[in-house]
């Protein structure tokens, strides 16, 4: 991949993340103003559901803000852009990610967590099991990644 192609790719990524952050902020403001959070927080299960989803979305939003900042820095500096391009297309990193199953585990964990949050309103045991599964998968993936990073 050439630098120009990578530049277009990260510009698209930045736009997508900015749209996500904008939608997240807009929904949050609307829910705060309408008082939905206060209404559902009275019930323990629904309170847990709202708190967990709020915390997770807040974490995702924070990660997006950091990544957008990183992309902005890279777009201003040619050297940083090349470093970022090399880092994302590094064959050793790709091999480690393949070996620890990150390409499958990360999207799967995200789907399982989303299912867990959705099922919080229906069955607490099922949802907590799903969330624990996602956390376990991510922990295993991290441990394997550390192991293969040391090995290779």
């Amino acid at each position, binding site marked *: 991949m050439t630098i120009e192609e990578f530049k277009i790719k990260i510009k698209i990524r930045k736009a997508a993340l900015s749209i996500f952050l904008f939608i997240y902020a807009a929904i949050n403001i609307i829910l705060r103003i309408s008082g939905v959070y206060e209404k559902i927080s009275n019930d323990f299960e629904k309170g847990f559901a709202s708190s967990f989803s709020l915390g997770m979305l807040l974490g995702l939003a924070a990660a997006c803000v950091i990544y957008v900042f990183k992309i902005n820095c890279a777009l201003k500096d040619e050297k940083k852009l090349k470093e970022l*391009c090399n880092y994302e297309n590094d064959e050793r990193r790709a091999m480690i990610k393949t070996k620890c199953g990150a390409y499958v585990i990360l999207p799967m964990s995200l789907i399982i967590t989303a299912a867990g949050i959705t099922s919080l309103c229906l069955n607490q045991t099922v949802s907590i099991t799903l969330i624990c599964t996602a956390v376990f998968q991510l922990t295993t993936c991290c441990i394997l990644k550390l192991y293969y990073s040391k090995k290779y």
Partner: protein
Amino acid sequence: MKTRIPELRKKYRLSQEALALEVGTTRQTITSIEVGKYTASLPLAYKIAHYFGLSIEEVFDFSDISFSENNFK
């Protein structure tokens, strides 16, 4: 696999980071190749060798790879 990358880097006064930037990889990958933990792919080996103006065999030592006697000549 043994390589001549550290020797060539010293000769051309090049840091691992600078070499990594030139050949399109990361410093960690260059370190792993140098210590023999990771075997570079053919395109990366070619890029490294081409950067120093040498052939792949001149940069990477393939003497520890055994070949079968029935291979084509």
